């Protein structure tokens, strides 16, 4: 039987901050979204204060009396990405096969390893803790869905001490745990699907596991059928060690201050296209179209509202920042209406195709590879000397619209001039 583990970092962003701020250990810490709007991560102590995930920070702060003893930090993605890389590389040492599922969780295939899975889980939990300072929980089971469920148990119930192996449980015990898990908490069952299942009497993971798979397929989908089978211990989902290439690449941000000038909107759109085009080239794709979106602040009820988007097609697919930005700005000029205070803009690269199978346009003059070489050089320079070392002038240098990140911690592990300080 297969032995799969899901390893997940606890309160990942908050834990990354605490790893370099020992004074914040065991204290309420929250990390705020881009633009310091909403709470996106909470330490255990912040959860205990009743701060909810996704809650607007100004609300939580008022409720707690100017924030109380809570430390609120802007998100520091350079730090989280580096810590994630460390954890994932370390975990990869423990198993022959790894699927990185998100920035803070991965599946490991422990099938056939000589060590007892539970003991191995405890060993890797201790190792990650010691090497990186980050706490993780480990869920183990014969399928991905059960490993995910075991991970949830390990997180919720301190009795497991961070490692839950459903594969080692007696069948009756496993059923008891499945019965205690609401169907909405099962991996792959969203809230809407959950309420439909509940309406049919399937309230727990055990109810879903016991349902007739063929009926589930007819009533819902093959995805729900597979989930039910996986809950019974029948593997339907394999580990994917290479993530599929993205079909669309998006970049959008709220502005730090309302924007009215078209030039500033153009700066923002150019910046977003540059960022997305970099990702596009990293996966060796080209985009056939660019979508542009702008909107005013939906929460400012008394201000005039405007929200619109537009897709601009390209004569032939491209990964050249200049070509994509020109197309996006053409779209922006058509979208823009004066007299509004814009709060957000975004772009989306669409119709992605592999660059290796470029389809030339009959009516466009033969393109040389100079653009490609320029982009490759640009990417290399920016990788080596830091993001936006070289950028399109149209992306702006002052960026009055840029996000508020009033309280970002230093990028402790990626910048020479922001290293943590040791007194002596």
């Amino acid at each position, binding site marked *: 039987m297969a032995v799969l583990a899901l390893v997940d970092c606890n309160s990942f962003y908050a834990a990354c901050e605490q790893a370099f701020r020992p004074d914040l250990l065991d204290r309420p810490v929250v990390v705020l979204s881009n633009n310091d709007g909403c709470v996106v991560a909470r330490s255990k102590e912040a959860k205990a204060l009743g701060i909810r995930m996704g809650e607007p920070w100004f609300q939580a702060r008022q409720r707690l009396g100017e924030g109380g003893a809570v430390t609120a930090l802007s998100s520091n993605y350079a730090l989280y990405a580096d810590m994630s890389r460390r954890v994932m590389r370390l975990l990869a040492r423990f198993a022959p096969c790894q699927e990185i599922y998100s920035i803070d969780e991965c599946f490991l295939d422990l099938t056939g390893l000589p060590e007892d899975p539970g003991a191995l889980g405890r060993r890797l939990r201790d190792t990650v803790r010691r090497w990186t300072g980050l706490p993780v929980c480990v869920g183990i089971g014969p399928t991905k869905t059960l490993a995910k469920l075991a991970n949830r148990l390990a997180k919720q119930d301190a009795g497991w001490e961070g490692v839950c192996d459903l594969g080692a449980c007696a069948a009756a015990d496993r059923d008891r745990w499945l019965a205690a898990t609401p169907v909405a908490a099962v991996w792959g069952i969203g809230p809407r699907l959950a309420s439909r299942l509940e309406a049919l009497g399937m309230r727990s993971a055990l109810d879903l596991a016991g349902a007739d798979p063929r009926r589930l397929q007819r009533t819902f989908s093959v995805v729900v059928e597979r989930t039910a089978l996986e809950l019974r211990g029948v593997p339907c989902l394999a580990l994917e060690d290479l993530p599929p290439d993205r079909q669309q690449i998006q970049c959008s941000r709220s502005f730090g201050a309302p924007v009215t000038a078209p030039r500033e909107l153009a700066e923002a759109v150019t910046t977003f296209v540059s960022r997305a085009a970099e990702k596009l080239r990293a996966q060796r794709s080209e985009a056939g179209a660019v979508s542009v979106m702008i909107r005013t602040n939906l929460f400012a009820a008394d201000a005039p509202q405007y929200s619109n988007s537009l897709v601009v097609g390209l004569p032939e697919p491209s990964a050249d920042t200049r070509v994509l930005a020109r197309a996006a700005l053409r779209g922006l000029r058509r979208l823009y209406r004066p007299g509004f205070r814009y709060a957000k803009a975004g772009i989306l690269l669409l*119709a992605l195709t592999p660059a290796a199978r470029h389809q030339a346009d009959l009516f466009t003059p033969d393109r040389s590879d100079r653009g490609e070489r320029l982009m490759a050089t640009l990417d290399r320079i920016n990788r080596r000397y830091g993001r936006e070392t070289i950028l399109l002038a149209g992306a702006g240098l002052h960026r009055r619209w840029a996000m508020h990140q009033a309280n970002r911690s230093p990028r402790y592990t990626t910048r020479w001039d922001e290293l943590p300080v040791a007194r002596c």
Partner: protein
Amino acid sequence: MSEKKRGRPAGTGRYREPTQVMRVPSSQVAVVRGYLEQLRPLPGAAPEAAVARPVRPPDRRRLLPLMTWPVRAGFPSPAEDDRDDAIDLNELLAPRAEATFLLRVSGSSMTGAGIDDGDVLVVDRSLTADYGRIVVAVVDGEFTVKRLVRRDGKACLEASHPDFPPITLRDDQELAVWGVVTRVIKSV
């Protein structure tokens, strides 16, 4: 565009695009069929995906050196057989990269151990802090660099400078070692 279409919706067939009938010499049917087989979308690919999934090349392309020295008539370079990669400082400074962190020194209590203000410390969190080693410890919520020693049966943090007394921990203070200092990077 208002013309009524019959058959399955465009783009949902085997090739995800319109198809047409074509004459092929009998001897070439197998060749064409084999080629079309390759164009078939992989199961699980999104309908709007390209006709085949791209194969992603490995992160670092390794080119096989056919002849890395310019080919000249005459005596071949005697160095060609002994070519080596350049020395990688990480091998020395960060053998366990995942557990290695850099910290900046502020203060002068460790000058006797060769650690000066402004130096960069290489700290390995995977190592066990044995007595006698220089460690980064957490004292009152701050990182402090000191030598971990044992005095009268108690762990204690010792400076390497005559002006600084050792830190003996009060009973309510817990000694937390954050990592072990393995190297000092300094300008000379």
